[in-house]
């Protein structure tokens, strides 16, 4: 079973290589290796560092909620990058990619942190002795 899955995978990957050969370029190869590099040397250490800061500086009843809020904020910021950084964008199209994304991002992040506030306060109320 494992061998069959692996063999199918190898064949599909090779077919992908055949398809990519005619369009391969330095640009494409850079995009291919950029993901792992940016993740391994930038995103992951940044996330780990923020996690450490939260563990050290944020008091207990808040810690988990702040970490969740931070994670959601990070995902929203990543998704907003192609909407906010647009020197390579196509021509303007009425009704497409023309919303106020700065405000949108701010509102979404605000809702997330409101959620952090409410869940933590609600959790404290339910367990009044938890922070003793």
């Amino acid at each position: 079973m494992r061998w069959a899955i692996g063999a199918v995978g190898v064949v599909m990957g090779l077919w992908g290589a055949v398809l990519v050969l005619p369009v391969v370029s330095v640009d494409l190869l850079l995009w291919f290796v950029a993901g792992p590099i940016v993740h391994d040397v930038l995103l992951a250490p940044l996330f780990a560092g923020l996690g450490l800061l939260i563990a050290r500086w944020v008091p207990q009843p808040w810690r988990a909620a702040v970490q969740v809020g931070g994670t959601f904020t990070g995902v929203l910021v990543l998704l907003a990058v192609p909407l906010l950084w647009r020197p390579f964008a196509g021509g303007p199209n009425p009704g497409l990619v023309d919303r106020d994304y700065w405000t949108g991002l701010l509102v979404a992040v605000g809702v997330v942190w409101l959620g952090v506030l409410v869940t933590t306060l609600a959790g404290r109320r339910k367990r009044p002795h938890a922070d003793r």
Partner: protein
Amino acid sequence: MKRTSSPHTATRLGLWLGVAFGLCFVTGLLSHYLQHPPGWFAWPTRPVWLYRFTQGVHVTSGVAAIPLLLAKLWTVYPKLFERPVVKSLPHALERGSVLVLVGASFFELVTGLFNATQNYPWQFFFPSAHHAVAWIAVGALLVHVAVKLPLMRTPAEEVRRGTLSRRGFLLTTGGAAAVAVLATAGGTVPWLRTVSVLGTRSAALPVNRTAAAAQVSTVDDGWRLTVGGRRFSLRELEALPQTTAELPIACVEGWSASARWTGVPVRDLLALAGVEDGDVRVESLERDGLYRASTLPAAHARDPLTLLALRVNGETLPLDHGYPCRLIAPSRPGVTQTKWVTRLEVIR
């Protein structure tokens, strides 16, 4: 900080990610074959929203896969620093296959996300590259599954270091995927449009290529639509029996929007011109550009809801939407719904 990787959590996330990648791959291939149909490929004309659905699933599962991939890599990040770097030939091959998998995965998700926002910070041709690397990603994924399959039976870790419990970590990841989907899916899910602050569609019916960009200007009375050997003026088209249908425009970039289109069924025009039906080549007034012409498969050409639309939502077609007439067919990618149509030709 000393942290070990957690196979139990990693395989759970791997399963979710596998589902997301599987959906992306299958719907992406469908979209590719719709635009470059091999001989064996056939696509139904009903339901009219079928392509809207498959392409919506494609982009949405891709967006959901972004936090899933990041969480998955987070659980195995300590393995990156394993020493020695290479223990044996199989170990080297395995690490190599993981590098290919991660590279191809990021390539697909990031280029897909940028393309969905009509942002192209690269020189390669996106559709070909995105299609080719998808095969590499899924191939490497299957190799990875084959290697790691025994780990599926790993028991849950007794204690997880860190602020969040194992359960909490998985819940946070699921929540992050849900946040990502909510923030973007309004481009295709109508009732989410105001909620999706990072959605691409702002108007009820957006324009994806303006007349100015296509270098098409409004036509005069001399304009004729050529169908086989027959030519129709705009007046003649307006005098023919009209059909009105609610049909979606569904873009490969993931947004979609429904509108009420009124016009003459393509099959009526072919019958009036006395040509046998078959695959129909639809040409635009646009002089060049990748999508200036499209081929309408015979099944769609025969469908009574495939229209050469003259009106949209009760009004004369605006120039940006394809005046004097545009193609609108059920269950087809937006790029094949040719605007500013000037000629219909049965090619086989």
